[in-house]
């Protein structure tokens, strides 16, 4: 057995045809890149929608002719109507949360690097892995079609919209927001334009996405438990792996709940059950008599039982990547590795018991509210442990300020800036006036949206050399970082003020709300900052495409990092380690090791028994030995 070649054992041989190699591939690396491309496409759509919303907020009533062409009923004559604005809110939220923040960090980077970092040749179930991507892509196509089906006579699939029972509303997509609160999401067309076929497609898309995520989560957990290479004990895993593992556990336990809730919602809409719809609802001048006795709050409970873990699904991989990158570029071990692992677990665990803090104004008992409040604030403890340890890792280090490091530090900054307002919103009494204002918007965009995105940026700048054998352009990367960092603060810090003044979320425009008139210059400022920030992302897209072909070539270990992905070629061969699985002898962050030939030790470096001891330093204080 010991002389067999690896190819004989690898569960799927290297593919030869183009289709098997790049499209229906079983290789976790190709699937990871497919997920990243999906997220890059989805984030373009989501960003475009946010710019459209900003245009409407700051320059209401302006005619944008391209809009009128694309959405003749949503923006007649190019002027956006409020329903269309609401459907943009819904689509932006749904696409960003599900198809960007859930796919890229976990499905993308996790898929690519988890097997390599634990020394495996592939995921445990390559076929399930492939299916999870294609199912997710199908979900994306369905959600995209949700905005085109209703009330749209110029696009061919409007017939599909009619067939799905949508009727012809005056708008183009579901308008209920990414939370899809019942009963408006549950009664169909009477709830308003866009709540017919568009809403059906929204639910179907989410259900499809759940299935794809569950397949992925199953694969991640099994791979990590079963396929670690020799010597890769749990406590020798990079923190990225811990983060992906915890994320997979969260996905495994929370997506089924959303799937169940989605099925109930769809039944309410299509076969006339009354899970979420109470009796006697009045729409316009008519009373809805077809439903009785359902509970709209039940939807909120089910949704947020999924929804809160979901925000950790988005951010935990970013935390893992940040820890990893901070250590590498500070040339120091992660401060408090064990504490970091337990903090990740604590955050994941507590995340399941705090969903009620999204529902403080739903009329819940003050005692429940207090319980949820205390549990919510207690998440501050592991979060503070993580932040403290990140700072401890940076403390006294000779930091290499390259783009991945900049974005990782940016992650810490955004996580703190966005997390601190969580202490405000987590208290039921303070949440009451802030609820559904721009304060909430600013909080979750900073902490779960932008921080997660910064984690992904750090990850892509860090791992791009491994994935494509070339660096991303450093100069463009630094430009990208600085404008984006300043830009997102310019966007979201003023929103806190708006929220405190009382500006409500999800309003298409504020022309009728005189008490907000004084905020208008701030609204325009935010929009300009948003447009500049979004345009800067085009630099990033250009950098990606250009660097794949023309970037500076990278060797196997360009960052002088220690984990297993850096012992193999860039890009890695089909089975990751060219036939011989590595053996691990030490922890993942051995930087600044006194007496070592370099200032770092790879995880595969064996101990040298009785090696001559030269130049023992005084416990390596500046972390840089040569």
């Amino acid at each position: 057995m010991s002389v067999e070649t690896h190819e004989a054992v690898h569960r799927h041989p290297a593919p030869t045809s183009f289709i098997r190699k790049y499209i229906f591939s079983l290789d976790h690396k190709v699937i990871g890149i497919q997920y990243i491309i999906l997220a890059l496409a989805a984030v373009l759509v989501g960003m475009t929608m946010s710019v459209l919303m900003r245009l409407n907020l700051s320059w209401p009533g302006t005619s944008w002719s391209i809009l009128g062409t694309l959405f003749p009923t949503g923006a007649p004559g190019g002027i956006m109507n409020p329903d269309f604005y609401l459907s943009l809110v819904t689509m932006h939220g749904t696409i960003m949360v599900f198809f960007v923040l859930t796919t890229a960090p976990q499905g993308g980077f996790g898929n690519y690097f988890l097997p390599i970092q634990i020394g495996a040749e592939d995921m445990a179930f390559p076929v399930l892995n492939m299916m999870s991507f294609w199912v997710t892509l199908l979900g994306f196509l369905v959600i995209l079609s949700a905005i085109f089906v209703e009330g749209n006579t110029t696009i061919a699939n409007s017939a599909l919209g009619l067939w799905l029972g949508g009727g012809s509303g005056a708008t183009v997509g579901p308008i209920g927001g990414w939370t899809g609160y019942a009963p408006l999401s549950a009664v169909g067309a009477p709830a308003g334009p866009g709540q017919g076929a568009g809403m059906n497609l929204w639910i179907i898309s989410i259900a499809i996405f759940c299935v794809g995520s569950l397949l992925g989560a199953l694969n991640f957990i099994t791979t990590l438990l079963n396929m670690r290479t020799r010597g890769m004990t749990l406590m020798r895993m990079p923190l990225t792996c811990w983060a992906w593992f915890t994320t997979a556990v969260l996905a495994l336990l929370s997506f089924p709940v959303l799937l169940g809730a989605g099925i109930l919602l769809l039944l309410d809409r299509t076969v006339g059950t009354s899970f979420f719809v109470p009796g006697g609802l009045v729409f316009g001048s008519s009373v809805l008599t077809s439903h009785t006795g359902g509970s709209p709050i039940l939807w909120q409970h089910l949704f947020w039982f999924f929804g809160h873990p979901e925000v950790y699904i988005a951010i935990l991989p970013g935390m893992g990547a940040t820890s990893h990158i901070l250590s590498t570029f500070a040339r120091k071990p992660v401060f408090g590795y064990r504490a970091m692992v337990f903090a990740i677990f604590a955050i994941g665990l507590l995340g399941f018991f705090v969903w009620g803090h999204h529902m403080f104004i739903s009329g819940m008992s003050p005692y429940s509210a207090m319980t949820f409040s205390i549990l919510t604030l207690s998440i501050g403890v592991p979060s503070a442990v993580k932040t403290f340890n990140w700072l401890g890792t940076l403390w006294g280090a000779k930091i290499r300020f390259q783009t991945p490091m900049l974005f990782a530090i940016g992650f810490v900054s955004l996580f703190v800036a966005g997390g601190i307002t969580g202490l405000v919103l987590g208290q039921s009494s303070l949440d009451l006036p802030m609820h559904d204002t721009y304060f909430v918007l600013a909080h979750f965009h900073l902490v779960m949206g932008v921080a997660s995105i910064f984690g992904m940026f750090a990850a892509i700048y860090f791992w791009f050399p491994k994935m494509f054998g070339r660096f991303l352009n450093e100069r463009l990367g630094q430009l990208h970082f600085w404008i984006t960092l300043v830009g997102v603060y310019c966007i979201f810090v003023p929103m806190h003020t708006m929220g405190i003044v009382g500006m409500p979320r999800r309003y298409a425009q504020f022309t009728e709300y005189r008490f907000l008139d004084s905020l208008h210059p701030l609204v325009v400022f935010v929009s300009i900052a948003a447009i500049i920030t979004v345009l800067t992302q085009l630099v990033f897209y250009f950098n990606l495409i250009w660097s794949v072909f023309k970037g500076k070539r990278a060797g196997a270990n360009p960052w002088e990092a220690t984990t297993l992905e850096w012992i193999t070629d860039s890009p890695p061969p089909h089975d990751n380690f060219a036939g011989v699985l590595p053996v691990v002898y030490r922890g993942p962050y051995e930087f600044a090791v006194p007496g070592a030939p370099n200032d770092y030790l790879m995880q595969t470096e064996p101990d040298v028994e009785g090696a001559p001891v030269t130049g023992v330093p005084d416990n390596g204080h500046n972390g840089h030995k040569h």
Partner: protein
Amino acid sequence: MATTVTSTRPLTKKGFSGGSKGRGSNGNGGPKKNGHDRRFPDFQSSANRYRIGTWVGLASILMMFTALSSAYIVRAASSSDWKPLAMPRILLLSTGLILISSATLEHARRKLKAAATAAYKSWLLLTMLLGLGFVGSQLLAWRQLVSQGVYVASNPHSSFFYLLTAAHGVHLLGGLIALSYLAIRSRVRSDNATAVLRMQAGADAVTLYWHFMDFLWIYLFVLLFFVR
């Protein structure tokens, strides 16, 4: 944490063995288990992943039914329109069939462990027949209710009855597909030790799944008709 911020220990006689201290703060936890060069994953471990994967998958299925059960309990308590159905008698037959099928599948799995392949095949087929009988019996229960004019939207209890039985039925059909896969694989005669291990792991995984479906049905049956 016990060590300083930089937390690298001075070099010892053992060389730069950064990972030797159990409770260090820099990711070197755990005792060293360095072995020989490992070229391949061993087959036992690759067979294990079917068992692990099944357990993990069952956790997610359990979560979905937990969510639906909590919806059931909340909905039953939240309104006065809750009118529990009378239990269709044929569900007792369903319950009997699925209980027996669990026993036959367990027997088949043990036959495979004992290398009695022929017996394994026949017990497998018997299990599939019992599984199909269960599905048929459930469909008959639906037919009975429909003939009494009880539909999905008739009242919340009937909604949950149809939903939960359908959700369970879909998962059970998945189990039947897995059983047919086992049956097809059992025709391939192989003396290869790896293939035998794999076949056993597959049988273990499917048996586990099937027992879970059995347990799930008993749970749903009790929830629907004895808890109300």
